[in-house]
């Protein structure tokens, strides 16, 4: 090796080191919290997380029964019924929006596609991840993954695999934002070229696992109240995930426009109303279809005799009060061009989804059982912690990466 070469490699090394130092400085800077630390939100969120950590420590040493009300007759409680089954329905906005933007190319929705994907991705990580808290023997969770024990006839097997694959797809869809944040132009281009494939894959997976969550209950015939049990649960779950996800997008949009005001360009703010009304239209249409399907199923299963019992009234409340009514409100809001009505409709819709998913997983499940399940405060606490953790990570990312705003010179 002559002197020249040595100096060249030396210089190269220097550049690499410099870049590395620059990068780590950037990372350290970005990792630091932005803004004041001791805000009321942070204090409350922090304490919720700490309490949950203690509770989970107890749960993993003393067993699930130590902090939950789960029993031999109610093996699945709030953590599955709400966190996983309801949470995943709420996260449905991501696949619907990617369908609108990347498949139908409705450019109107482009400004919110990124934040929705981020929300969807985090929802899966945290809510589907909450499944792990509920597993009695989580160390064996690798069995159905690495293939030494594939229970391929199991709907849960399908759902679990689709969760994992879908998270990957959503991560790929979101990855250009990360590359922009880090200033990696060439990698960004590469990642962006993967988007369409990931989107198509993601929509397919979503169709299947949204309905798959419903299919979990196909074998509960005889346990689930006849007003809710139907062979069409998968279809109903799929259709309802569309308006559940979009209502969540409407609600989240409303909130983040208040919280992250400074991030949002004025153009975007103006287009926001148009977007909300567009989504409201889709909600109204799909809810109408859903209501109609519910009606057909009801007629098909001939569950008349249950209609005028307390269970029947409860069922009617769900279907009329929280499907038909918000559907009407969406239509009314569209006619009057009233954001307020649309927002109320979105909230009612979300309540309706919670009701429906909890009815199937908990309330109307084993409806004949004399001793009922209701969650302990500790189960609720841990659920809150999961939500809080998601919000914190979401805020961290939105404050750093180009999610709501656009980076100059990085346009698509």
């Amino acid at each position: 090796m002559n002197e020249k070469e040595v100096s060249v490699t030396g210089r190269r090394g220097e550049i690499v080191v410099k870049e590395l130092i620059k990068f780590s400085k950037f990372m350290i800077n970005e990792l630091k919290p932005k803004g004041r630390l001791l805000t009321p939100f942070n204090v409350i969120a922090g304490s919720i997380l700490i309490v949950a950590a203690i509770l989970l420590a107890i749960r993993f040493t003393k067993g699930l029964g130590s902090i939950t009300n789960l029993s031999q007759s109610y093996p699945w409680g709030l953590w599955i019924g709400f966190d996983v089954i309801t949470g995943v329905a709420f996260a449905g906005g991501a696949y619907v929006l990617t369908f609108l933007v990347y498949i139908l190319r409705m450019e109107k929705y482009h400004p919110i596609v990124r934040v929705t994907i981020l929300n969807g991705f985090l929802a899966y990580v945290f809510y589907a991840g909450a499944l792990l808290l509920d597993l009695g023997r989580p160390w064996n969770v690798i069995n159905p993954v690495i293939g030494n024990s594939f229970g391929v006839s199991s709907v849960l097997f399908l759902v679990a695999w689709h969760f994992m694959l879908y998270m990957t797809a959503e991560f790929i869809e979101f990855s250009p934002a990360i590359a922009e944040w880090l200033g990696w132009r060439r990698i960004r281009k590469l990642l962006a070229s993967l988007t369409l494939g990931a989107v198509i894959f993601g929509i397919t997976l979503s169709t299947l696992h949204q309905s798959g969550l419903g299919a979990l209950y196909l074998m509960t015939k005889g346990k689930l109240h006849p007003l809710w049990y139907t062979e069409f649960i998968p279809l109903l779950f799929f259709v309802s995930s569309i308006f559940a996800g979009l209502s969540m997008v409407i609600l989240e949009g409303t909130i983040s426009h208040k919280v992250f005001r400074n991030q949002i360009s004025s153009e975007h703010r103006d287009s926001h109303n148009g977007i909300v009304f567009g989504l409201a239209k889709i909600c109204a249409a799909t809810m109408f279809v859903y209501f109609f399907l519910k009606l057909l199923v009801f007629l098909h299963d001939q569950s008349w005799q249950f209609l005028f019992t307390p269970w029947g009234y409860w069922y009617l409340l769900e279907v009329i009060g929280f499907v038909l009514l918000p559907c009407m409100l969406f239509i009314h809001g569209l006619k009057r061009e009233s954001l307020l009505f649309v927002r109320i409709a979105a909230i009612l819709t979300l309540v309706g989804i919670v009701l429906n998913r909890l009815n199937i997983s908990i309330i109307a499940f084993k409806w004949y059982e004399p001793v009922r399940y209701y969650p302990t405060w500790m189960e609720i606490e841990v659920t809150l912690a999961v939500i809080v953790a998601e919000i914190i990570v979401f805020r961290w990312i939105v404050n750093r990466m180009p999610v709501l705003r656009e980076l100059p010179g990085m346009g698509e």
Partner: protein
Amino acid sequence: MDRKEFLITANIALGAVLAGSKVRAAEVNEKRELMGVLVDTTRCMGCRSCEYACAEANGLPEPEEDESVFDNERTQSETQWSVVNRYETDLGEVFVKKQCMHCMQPACATACLTKAMYKSEEGPVIWREKKCMGCRFCMISCPFDIPKFEYHSAVPKLHKCQLCLDRIRNGEQPACVENCLGDEALVFGKRSELIEIARKRIYGELGNYVNHVYGEHEVGGTGMLYLASVPFDKLGFRNDLGSESYPALTRQFLYTVPVVITLLPPFLLAISHATKREQGKEKSEE
């Protein structure tokens, strides 16, 4: 473009593999001779010898001896896999031993994503500790609510009758059958032969039995078969379960999966191309 298309094809292939194998949903070969047990409740004296034998054979705590256990209907539990209950009927007291039904097409094994719940070749449905991840989907799915979970353990196990598979493999009878003090109240044997014995008893002692072998058709057939003198719903059996097997309830959904995985992506791709072209047109017109 190439990369995109490759990615999509790869995705489809992967999905089809994942889904395609599902189609053969844990269907148990019905022609194979599976073993089972016939429980003749008219011959059971309620001595509970089977309960003690079960506890001993499986290392479970010894059941309580007191007669008062009969006062309330008991269910199986993490510490007791087999339970004898007493029912007051029009024809007097009837004792019924209940445990896992060892379904021909078990809902639990179909539900299990790790194959921890498993229908053995011999017939008993067993739980395999090394595979189970404790999701409890088997408990949700079992039509008889049999599997029980240890809620107060950091290393929880599931509990259910294994029909003494190890003993069967050694040519022995299940512990409960071997220790039954009744006159053939429990009979172990090939399921088809048990059904014949059951028929013979029903027709041989007309009036002594209701004409129904519980388990012959329920949920697609079970390894445990029951005879009784009173209708089965008087003995705590569900008569609303139907004769369709539980795995059949999810079969249609699982069949749809590969169809969606193969047809939806190309369809989406086609729409995406079409909309792109349209956009291009609009732009050039402008």
